[in-house]
């Protein structure tokens, strides 16, 4: 019933309870094998010969942060995906292909020598990335692939790429079975327009072009494991929005929404009569508007959204878009930050138009995966404070949504609704203890959420660090959420022990507060001869 795409853990949990289907990323390490894939299947109307030079195998050595020891990295992982040339010396691929990439290379079809590459722009929210390569002449003689329109349902498309099981370019034919607005699994929380095709999209296909004739109509990116031959592609409107977004040299991201709706409530005749809807009139009812939403104070709970930019919204929350009935959110979502949308709203019997200037995600708790260079953390007197994140919760494994501590799962699910956390930059967890006499009594506070130090709210790790540095009291009084006993440590003893503990446990850095947008995909070629 609910839908919200930036704060939708709740909606996701409801959804997950009802239908346990899973969508998994298709990107995994492509194993080298001797089997050869056919380059062309009978009946596929595609000139692969002209395109193949523009389609690359993307090879990645990645290393993710170790959220148990936030100053360290986990084991190196080798994997591969696909990318394709779109001009201006840029290769388009999926963000998840190159996420946390420490060394990236691309290999042209038929070449034996990979060329170093680095991330120029990465958009985790829509799972797209743009790569550039070391050799400026690498694309000489390579024609960029051109983008086409959104395909129609039941039209045939071809997925081209380097799936696992072989070294050669592979092509798979499929039929567009659905165009919808759905979750992208890379971050786990973002939803955008996507196309469902009834062909197998295999590991290694990620980032590859999906074509109709010689036009690219999408980028292959995820598959559904619960159903056979169901793949998903990122359609051209989303790709083009990304390319438009980065034209100013900065990726702003999709405009934040932060609005909760009751998608079908106005099917009810009593509800319609109560709100004064006219016969045949559609609209969706607003349940909540988050404080970080650009709609906050403009749109109110109980409002009925009748139209967006003149497009009538049905009681199912859908509008006519790309010859399909799609969630009105798809239209909102395809806009750029700085654009505006106009809602026609029914409020307490009055009809009015409200213009909403769109903005990007601000600094509030991000429930989606962020792929930062390392977690934000602070070590003080052997107490490891880490910012809560989806990646941190994954320390509890694939079933983190049921296995992680209740209090952390709850905050992850309802952070935007809990007044205590609304203004916080970080939700700070005491994630570990480096044992020392000074922190001997920290045990009951592990995996708990720090709220205050010496009676003052702690809004971020920077703030926490400052409070530890500035404290002039004999004791540090740490108050944790829902804990009834404060955690008290001697300020003097903690400060004295701090450098000793760092030395004793060989902790190379005692904090990471992150640079704005410091992404984990740091691959570069500055060491090239």
């Amino acid at each position, binding site marked *: 019933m609910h839908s919200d795409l930036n704060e939708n853990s709740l909606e996701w949990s409801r959804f997950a309870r009802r239908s346990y289907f899973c969508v998994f990323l298709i990107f995994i390490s492509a194993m080298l094998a001797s089997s050869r894939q056919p380059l062309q299947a009978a009946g596929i109307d595609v000139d692969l010969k002209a395109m193949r030079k523009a389609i690359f195998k993307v090879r990645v050595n990645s290393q993710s942060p170790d959220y148990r020891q936030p100053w360290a990295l986990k084991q190196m992982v080798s994997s591969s995906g696909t990318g394709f040339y779109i001009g201006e010396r840029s290769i388009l691929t999926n963000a998840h292909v190159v996420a946390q990439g420490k060394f990236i290379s691309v290999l042209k079809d038929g070449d034996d020598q990979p060329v170093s590459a680095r991330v120029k722009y990465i958009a985790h929210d829509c799972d797209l990335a743009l790569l550039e390569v070391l050799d400026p002449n690498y694309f000489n003689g390579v024609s960029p692939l051109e983008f086409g329109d959104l395909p129609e349902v039941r039209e045939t498309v071809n997925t081209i790429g380097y799936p696992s099981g072989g070294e050669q370019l592979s092509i798979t034919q499929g039929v567009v079975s659905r165009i919808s607005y759905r979750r992208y699994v890379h971050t786990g929380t973002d939803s955008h327009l996507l196309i469902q095709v009834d062909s197998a999209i295999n590991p290694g296909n990620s980032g590859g072009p999906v074509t109709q004739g010689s036009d690219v109509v999408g980028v292959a990116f995820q598959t559904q494991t619960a159903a056979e031959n169901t793949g998903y592609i990122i359609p051209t409107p989303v790709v083009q929005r990304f390319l438009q977004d980065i034209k100013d040299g900065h990726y702003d991201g999709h405009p934040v929404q932060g609005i*909760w709706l009751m998608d079908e*409530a106005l099917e*009810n005749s009593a509800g319609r009569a109560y709100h004064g809807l006219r016969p045949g009139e559609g609209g969706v009812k607003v349940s909540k508007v988050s404080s970080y939403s650009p709609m906050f104070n403009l749109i109110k709970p109980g409002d009925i959204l009748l139209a967006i930019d003149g497009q009538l919204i049905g009681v199912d929350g859908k509008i006519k878009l790309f010859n399909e009935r799609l969630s009105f959110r798809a239209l909102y979502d395809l806009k750029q930050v700085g654009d505006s949308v106009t809602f026609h709203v029914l409020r307490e019997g009055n009809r009015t138009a409200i213009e909403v200037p769109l903005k990007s995600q601000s600094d509030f708790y991000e429930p989606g995966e962020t792929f930062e260079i390392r977690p934000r953390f602070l070590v003080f007197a052997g107490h490891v404070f880490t910012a809560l994140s989806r990646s941190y919760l994954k320390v509890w494994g694939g079933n983190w949504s049921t296995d992680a501590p209740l209090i952390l799962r709850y905050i992850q699910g309802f952070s935007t609704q809990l007044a205590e956390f609304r203004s916080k930059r970080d939700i700070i967890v005491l994630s570990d203890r480096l044992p020392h006499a000074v922190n001997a009594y920290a045990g009951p506070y592990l995996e708990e959420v720090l709220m205050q130090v010496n009676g003052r709210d702690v809004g971020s790790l920077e703030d926490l660090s400052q409070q530890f540095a500035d404290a002039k009291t004999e004791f540090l009084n740490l108050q944790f959420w829902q804990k009834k006993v404060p955690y008290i440590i001697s300020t003097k003893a903690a400060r004295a022990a701090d450098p000793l503990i760092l030395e004793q446990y060989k902790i190379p850095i005692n904090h990471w507060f992150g640079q704005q947008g410091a992404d984990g995909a740091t691959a570069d070629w500055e060491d090239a001869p």
Partner: protein
Amino acid sequence: MNFWCLLLIFFGLYSAKQASAEDFESSILRVYSHVQKPDYDAPWSGRSSERLTHMGVMVDADHILVAAFAVTGARHFEVEKLGDSRQYPMELTYVDPTINLALLRFSRDKPRGLKVLPRGRDIGLDDTVSLYQGLEGESLVPTPLRLREVEVKPIFLTGYSAPQYVFELKRSGFGWFEPVIREGKLVGAAIAQAGSFVYALPSRVIERFLREAKHKPYRGFAELGFSLSPLTSPDLRRWAQADSLGSQVGAWIHSVDPLSSFGKILKDGDILVELNGVRVSSRGTYQHSRWGRISVSEILSDMGEGQELTVKVLRDGKIKRYTAKAQRSRPVEDKLVPALGDEPPYLIFGGLLLQELSKGLIESWGSQWRKRAPLFYLFEEAFQSLGNRQDRKVVLQRVFPLEYNKGYHDLENDFITQINGVPITHIDSVREALNKPEALQSGYARFSLEPGGDEIILTYKGLDQVHSVLRQRYGIPEKAHFWEPPDQKL
């Protein structure tokens, strides 16, 4: 000692044990309970019944002592004397889920030759006992055990903290009220098993229950009304000005129930120094003469409602002494009612099934309920359970789809926070809110839901007809609790 001597001793001991086990077959009976758990999706009925087998002990000529967990939600009881195939119907005379004990009595006739099992006193650490099991087979089987420790831990049914014997036992299948016997006398009854430990209620608790069951009014088992946490950290002690107590005295008081005996007297952060004259350690324990270090709340299991409870606390560095009348634990009055097998309080309005959030409802997600139940239910259970029946959460359990409630069919498992602008705190408040004259006059009932912020709007008009269709289409009986207008048909 030669081999033949050892063999003779072994057979001597073996036959002695066999003989005592047979003796107890006239006092320890096998009880069958036919239990029907509530169906939270159809609370007017119940789930299919299941038969539980457990043990019972003759405590007087007519009564058998059993565990309360075996009688909650039970529709019928039968008892069987081991070696006698006839089953005798029983009826419940008294149950206290707080302490997990109940009394059954024979409805009509009873087996011949029954004997009352004599009752002994509490045992001490390292004492040897026998646990008698007769869940299957035709004879009682004793299992010799040694008392490892006595621990104050929550009772399975209600979470009430009571002292329990802890025995180490590698085999599974225990905890079904097997009597603990020493020197021919009942000294405890096993009520739970976790891993390789069996937990049993001690004599004093059993004695107190039997005594209180005859007392009018029943005084039950007292509760503290607050929780204790260790005050072991030297930094915390200095910060809390507890230095004057030394390093080993005083425990941290928190989660003071405002409706409890000390609700208006104690506050979070007070330090409990003494309870009824007993010195409290920094871990919240005291030195028991027979059981060693044990939680000080053990004292409560020997007290009932109305008895005097004295606390000595340290507040702001000063010692204060307070006395209050103890209150008995009343789980059915709690904010989150334990799963006691009763019909869940519910109300149907236009196909919306509304009921109070309870432990039973949360546990209806099955054995994995801690993972499967909605997060906001689990949060309530873990962190928001303090309060009484006036603070309960009412939930929208499900919607029975009809044209009338179209648009809301997929809603389920939401808190109902307000109806017609009236805060909802228990099922009776739902009725009151729905009966609000202004709402009746407007013709619309408005339900506010959390955590999603949804709102359900339905009309009062034609509800009689809607409820009639519901009964017919979904087989809901006439006697089910449908909302009815206060004085007139709508």
